[in-house]
């Protein structure tokens, strides 16, 4: 076991000193889908000290094509991704402290984990959450690495509070990504490429080699053999509400108001409730409506062409609609 990290220590950019630094770092990965699988696995293999991985979803068959931590068994059992991820990651590197957290990533839910986090890796699938991460990063002075992919394309950018432009500087408005996401699908190498960019920047930050950082937003299209890098020095805005001279962290405020959201490319609506649920009691109430399935974390129900998934801590996924109104109507019909 002693030479476990020997190949990484031989790499001059890390070395024995860098390896020692890695072993004391705590990385927060937000999302345990395709990007989250790839990043968390590589970070755990590399021997970081502690990984927290947050996800509110469970493993489905359509995930297996690109989400490398999961197997058919996880899909059959509808395991929450954060639980399945923690199990696999522990098999990979048991000395690393791994916290899988089955929860939605919100400013409130993440706050308790931030005090010793050295770096946040974005592995979410929507800009609502990314903008919230961007504000948290600024407020608590934690660097974060944006990453996203669709089809054969992807992008990545590293945000360092007090130094680089932030995501809010780069984007004039909150992107509406629904159309592309629904239409374009995704292939695994696009995931691997974004994760490679994010991970390299992560290692540079974790071993404090700030000079090596890319300093630009990178984007690519693997199928069409495109690659592009955009320098961002000129993008930093002194009046940016997230990273400027008088920050108001707008997406921390906005976040507090969102109570339900359409999930991009999923034909699904997420409804949040602060109320914990007794799943087996709920099952008794609703089992006359249609087929139910239960495990310690969630209860699912097929009903009138929709599939409802009720999570213990209060969230509900309504599959089969992109309409919040429709989803809420059905939800209240069932929950009462």
């Amino acid at each position, binding site marked *: 076991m002693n030479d476990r990290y020997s190949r990484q220590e031989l790499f001059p950019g890390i070395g024995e000193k860098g390896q020692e630094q890695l072993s004391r770092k705590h990385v927060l990965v937000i*999302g345990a*889908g*395709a*990007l*989250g699988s790839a990043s968390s696995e590589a970070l755990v293999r590399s021997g970081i000290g502690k990984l927290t991985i947050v996800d509110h979803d469970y493993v489905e068959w359509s995930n297996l094509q690109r989400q490398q931590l999961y197997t058919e068994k996880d899909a059959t059992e509808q395991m929450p991704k954060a639980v399945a991820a923690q199990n696999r990651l522990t098999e990979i590197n048991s000395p690393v402290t791994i916290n899988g957290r089955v929860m939605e990533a919100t400013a409130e839910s993440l706050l308790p984990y931030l005090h010793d986090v050295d770096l946040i890796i*974005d*592995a*979410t*699938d*929507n*800009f609502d959450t990314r903008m919230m991460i961007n504000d948290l990063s600024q407020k608590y002075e934690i660097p974060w690495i944006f*990453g*996203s*992919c*669709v*089809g054969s*394309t*992807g*992008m990545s950018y590293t945000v360092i509070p007090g130094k680089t*432009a932030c995501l809010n500087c*780069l*984007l*004039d*408005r909150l*992107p*509406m*990504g629904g*159309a*592309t*996401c629904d239409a*374009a699908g*995704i292939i695994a190498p696009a995931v691997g490429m974004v994760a490679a960019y994010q991970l390299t920047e992560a290692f540079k930050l974790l071993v404090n080699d700030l000079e090596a950082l890319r300093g*630009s*937003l990178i*984007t690519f*299209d693997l199928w*069409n053999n*495109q690659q*592009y*890098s*955009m*320098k*961002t*020095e*000129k*993008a930093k805005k002194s009046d940016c509400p997230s990273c400027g001279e008088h920050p108001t962290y707008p997406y921390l405020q906005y976040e507090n108001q969102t109570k339900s959201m359409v999930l*991009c*490319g999923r034909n699904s609506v997420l409804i949040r409730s602060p109320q914990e649920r007794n799943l087996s009691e709920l099952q008794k109430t609703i089992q006359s409506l249609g087929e139910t399935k239960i495990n310690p974390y969630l209860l699912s129900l097929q009903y009138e062409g929709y599939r409802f998934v009720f999570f213990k801590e209060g969230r509900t996924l309504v599959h089969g609609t992109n309409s919040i109104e429709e989803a809420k109507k059905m939800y209240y019909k069932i929950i009462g």
Partner: protein
Amino acid sequence: MIKILLFAGLREEAGKSEIEIKADNLSISGLKQQLLETYNSLNLNGAMIAVNEEYATEDTVVKSGDVVAFIPPVSGG
């Protein structure tokens, strides 16, 4: 000539990744207008803009020989 690079969804909408436009000393917003005359279905709003691999805005003025990239943010993960 100004060379325009299109990525991701914009590339698909235009059916090509590169477009050349005869222009000089033109703001990005002016360039967008010209581009939309030929490619009227292009959804350029929300795309990040780079000129010669540097971040740019609607006000940035481009010259002949410059390369302008429109990069629509993708959201999956």
